[in-house]
């Protein structure tokens, strides 16, 4: 019997993949204060799903295109009279609302909205798994290739310019990586919780890291543990899988914070 025949193994591999890609990307989201940007991209993907279904193209393509458009328009519109968080607040929720309305217009297509909003990791097929891992490897390769430039641009746009790095291009790299992660993570945790998978492991890793790289690795570890333990817990307690994974990550964050507090007490 093929090991991938088991839906639990497929779910575990999908969860692991998404967690591994989301963690280092999530570090950049945290460092650059782009948390809302991640949220906006994720919410916009509902609109992508609706469009993909109405034009009967692949959902992956629909989500990718809408997520990229979202990233592009936010980057272009920012600095034109609106504060970034206002702009993102408008765009994120509008995209989600328009997507939900658009889905309701789809006739003859029976879609399980809940599966997209909260994920359906237990229904991951072999093909889904393949797509997830292609996306994950793409994102990891992209981050590995651009790592130093991304880090420089994150520190300061001027430092980047002086080193011959175009910060706008690096922003674009992050936008693309974010779109890919959102597209492959929908199946795993759903639209509403993707941002959590980006931000919580990175935030939980912060107190234990002295360098950016270490933070990314620790975040990846926390993400992987959350995915595995969350899947296990969801199986045992019969709870929705995506939210359970996020609950485990949140628990890691709290425990990390407490541990750090204790460490500070002892040191102080």
């Amino acid at each position, binding site marked *: 019997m093929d090991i991938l025949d088991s839906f639990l193994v497929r779910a575990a591999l999908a969860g692991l993949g998404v967690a591994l890609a989301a963690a280092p990307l999530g570090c950049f989201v*945290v*460092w*650059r*204060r782009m948390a809302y940007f991640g949220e906006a991209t994720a919410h916009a993907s509902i609109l992508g799903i609706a469009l993909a279904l109405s034009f009967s193209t692949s959902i992956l393509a629909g989500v990718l295109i809408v997520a990229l458009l979202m990233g592009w328009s936010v980057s272009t519109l920012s600095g034109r009279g609106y504060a970034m968080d206002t702009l993102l607040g408008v765009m994120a929720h509008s995209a989600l609302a328009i997507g939900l309305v658009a889905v309701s217009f789809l006739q003859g297509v029976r879609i399980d909205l809940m599966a997209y909003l909260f994920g359906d990791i237990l229904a991951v097929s072999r093909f889904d798994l393949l797509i997830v891992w292609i996306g994950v490897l793409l994102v990891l390769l992209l981050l590995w290739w651009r790592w*130093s*430039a991304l*880090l*420089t641009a*994150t*520190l*300061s*746009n*001027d*430092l*980047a*310019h*002086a*080193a*011959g*790095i175009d910060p706008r291009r690096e922003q674009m790299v992050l936008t693309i990586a974010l779109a890919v992660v959102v597209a492959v993570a929908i199946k795993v945790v759903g639209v509403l919780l993707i941002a959590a998978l980006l931000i919580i492991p*990175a*935030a939980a890793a*912060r107190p234990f*890291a*002295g*360098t*950016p*790289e*270490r*933070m990314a690795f620790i975040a990846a570890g926390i993400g992987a543990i959350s995915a595995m333990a969350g899947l296990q817990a969801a199986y045992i307690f019969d709870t929705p899988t995506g939210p359970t994974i996020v609950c485990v990550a949140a628990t890691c964050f709290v425990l990390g914070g407490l541990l750090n507090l204790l460490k500070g007490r002892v040191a102080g």
Partner: protein
Amino acid sequence: MTLISAKNISVNHGNAIILQNVTLDINAGEIVTIVGPNGSGKSTLLRAFIGATPLKSGTLTRKDGLRIGYVPQKLHIDPTLPMSVARFLSIPLRVSASAAKDALEQAGSGALASRQMSDLSGGQFQRVILARALLGKPELLILDEATQGLDQPGSADFYRQIESLRETLGCAVMMVSHELHVVMAASDRVICLNGHVCCEGAPEVVASAPEYRALFGSGTQGALALYRHDHDHHHHAHDHEHEDA
């Protein structure tokens, strides 16, 4: 040899004219200081030189493959970004531990490598940023009010360091400063900026006292006079002049 040559460059922020028809060459090995009142476009000029701000008109020519070391006025590192001094020195290019140690010593901040950037004092922080800029073996070092937040002896120290760096590395230095008296002594050339180049002095830093006094004295007087003048009213009038044009 000319490292960077700006010809009639103008820069706008929105509708505001920040720089107008600035022509300026930086030659290998010289120390050029930009002085001028607040809002006179000093930082913008530096940012134009590193390519961080688009030109409205004019041309900027760099020597092929020019290596620039940039020390910003202020660098805010987000508290969520863990950054040790050693790691910071390897941005964007990885450097060996011994090269990092050398640069820290050159910048006058040895023994900091294992500290976190967030734990450094203002002076230590500036020196580490300087060390990072030195690691790229710059032909041109650009400093934007690098001594902000340092006390008088601290900044005098810092500029002495810059001078000795020029001696040892042979790099040109282009810097902005408010501390005229401290900086002028260390400069080959002083540019007084107020949206445009108001005047250029060339205080020769030589030992022979009378010449030095003659050159440097008049240079300081001119720049200081303008400086006070601009603080009162000139800057305002200057803006209107451009709006009318």
